[in-house]
């Protein structure tokens, strides 16, 4: 079975489904209409193109894309760098370090990143469409309660484990002991620096 087309089909279906769940996504997507974002992943030796129209088409390009044309942005990077691209303030550093190569209209990549980050999907509303308001509200209420209980249980377990490790088994240092130790290290470092300064002064006075 062709694996790469299966992957792009899955990404394309998921992406368009997610975009369809946010009513505000369509006008933002229309700003990208007719543009292409090409991502070349060196480590996978694959090139993916996202072509924007009323939806997003995802292609695994068989040929090298050539120089970026109008309305095109070509990003060359590694898979591990992709998550860093969400933070646009990191782009300059990534380009300077050679981890990212950008050709064409960078605004396309930024607009797409912005579109994904601004997605606001009301899951309760989506569930209500398939069931009804009461069921959706009750289920989400239960889920919120379960989440709060889990968080509470997690915090309690964390405290018990911490106490067991520091007080009962004494496998780890207590928070106060760590702070005291840090203070002692700082004090020692200050003493050493003072001693070094005095030593230098003495050596200079002998000369």
């Amino acid at each position: 079975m062709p694996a790469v087309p299966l992957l792009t089909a899955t990404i394309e279906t998921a992406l368009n489904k997610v975009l369809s769940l946010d009513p505000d996504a369509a006008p933002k997507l229309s700003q990208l209409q007719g543009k292409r974002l090409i991502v070349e992943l060196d480590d996978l030796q694959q090139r993916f193109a996202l072509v924007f129209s009323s939806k997003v088409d995802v292609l695994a390009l068989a040929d090298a894309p050539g120089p970026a044309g109008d309305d095109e942005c070509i990003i060359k990077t590694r898979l591990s760098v992709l998550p860093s691209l969400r933070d646009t303030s990191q782009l300059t550093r990534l380009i300077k370090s050679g981890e990212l190569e950008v050709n064409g209209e960078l605004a396309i990549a930024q607009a797409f990143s912005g579109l994904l980050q601004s997605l606001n999907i009301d899951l309760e509303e989506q569930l209500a469409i398939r069931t009804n308001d009461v069921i959706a509200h009750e289920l989400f209420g239960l889920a919120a309660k379960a989440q709060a209980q889990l968080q509470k249980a997690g915090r309690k377990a964390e405290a018990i484990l911490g106490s067991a490790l520091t007080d009962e088994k004494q496998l780890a240092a207590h928070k106060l002991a760590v702070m005291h130790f840090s203070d002692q290290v700082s004090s020692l470092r200050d003493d050493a620096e003072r001693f070094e300064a005095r030593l230098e002064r003495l050596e200079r006075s002998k000369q």
Partner: protein
Amino acid sequence: MSEQQTPNSEETSSSEQSTHFGFKTVDRTKKASMVAGVFDSVAAKYDVMNDFMSMGIHRLWKRYTIDCSGIKSGHKVLDLAGGTGDLAAKFSRLVGPAGQVVLADINHSMLSVGRDKLRDKGVVGNVDYVQANAEALPFPDNHFDLVTMAFGLRNVTDKDKALASIFRILKPGGRLLVLEFSKPTNEMLSKTYDWYSFNILPTMGQLVANDRESYQYLAESIRMHPDQDTLKSMFENAGFEHCDYQNLTGGIVALHRGYKF
């Protein structure tokens, strides 16, 4: 399977006036109308049967074809024997409003189903529909950037003539992609595939589309289609350059690619 003729017997037929229709030998002038009869019969259930027969894998083969198309905004594309418009729908979005997609099929029933399907999906504006014979395409010379033909070439009576006709209408630098059933490269797969084709496929046709004969023809026409290397030679004879092919799913299907320079 012993009754099978050798692939590409169309070209080696003893009579210039005869060709094959599945495993039958028929008058060349009659093949087009016989193929039309098959597709008139299956048009309404074509998509359902494709999904059912291939377990949806035909969609991945078509995606791979699009991945290899090099298509860009503003390009002119001919989806030949485009049937129910699976490729044309995607091409329409990829070429954008500045581009043009022509969905062509010799069969009026298939073209009608394709047109209705695309319009229902909202694919309008840059798609034209043309009933055309691949052997004599009604388009100007050097007109298209890309011609695709998915699961259509094996039904054409004179394949060499069709390839020459496609070559004429392609722009210099344009490419032809032919996605077609081919010959499995693995002996075991080949035997399993033959058993599936001649036993399961016609039964599926009977149950789903109430048409056993058309799906018997499908299985037979696949066996009569030229193998990968023969089709590649036919591309080269028609004038295409940099020709190659990619086997998909063990050679059950192959994507042939050729360029006009």
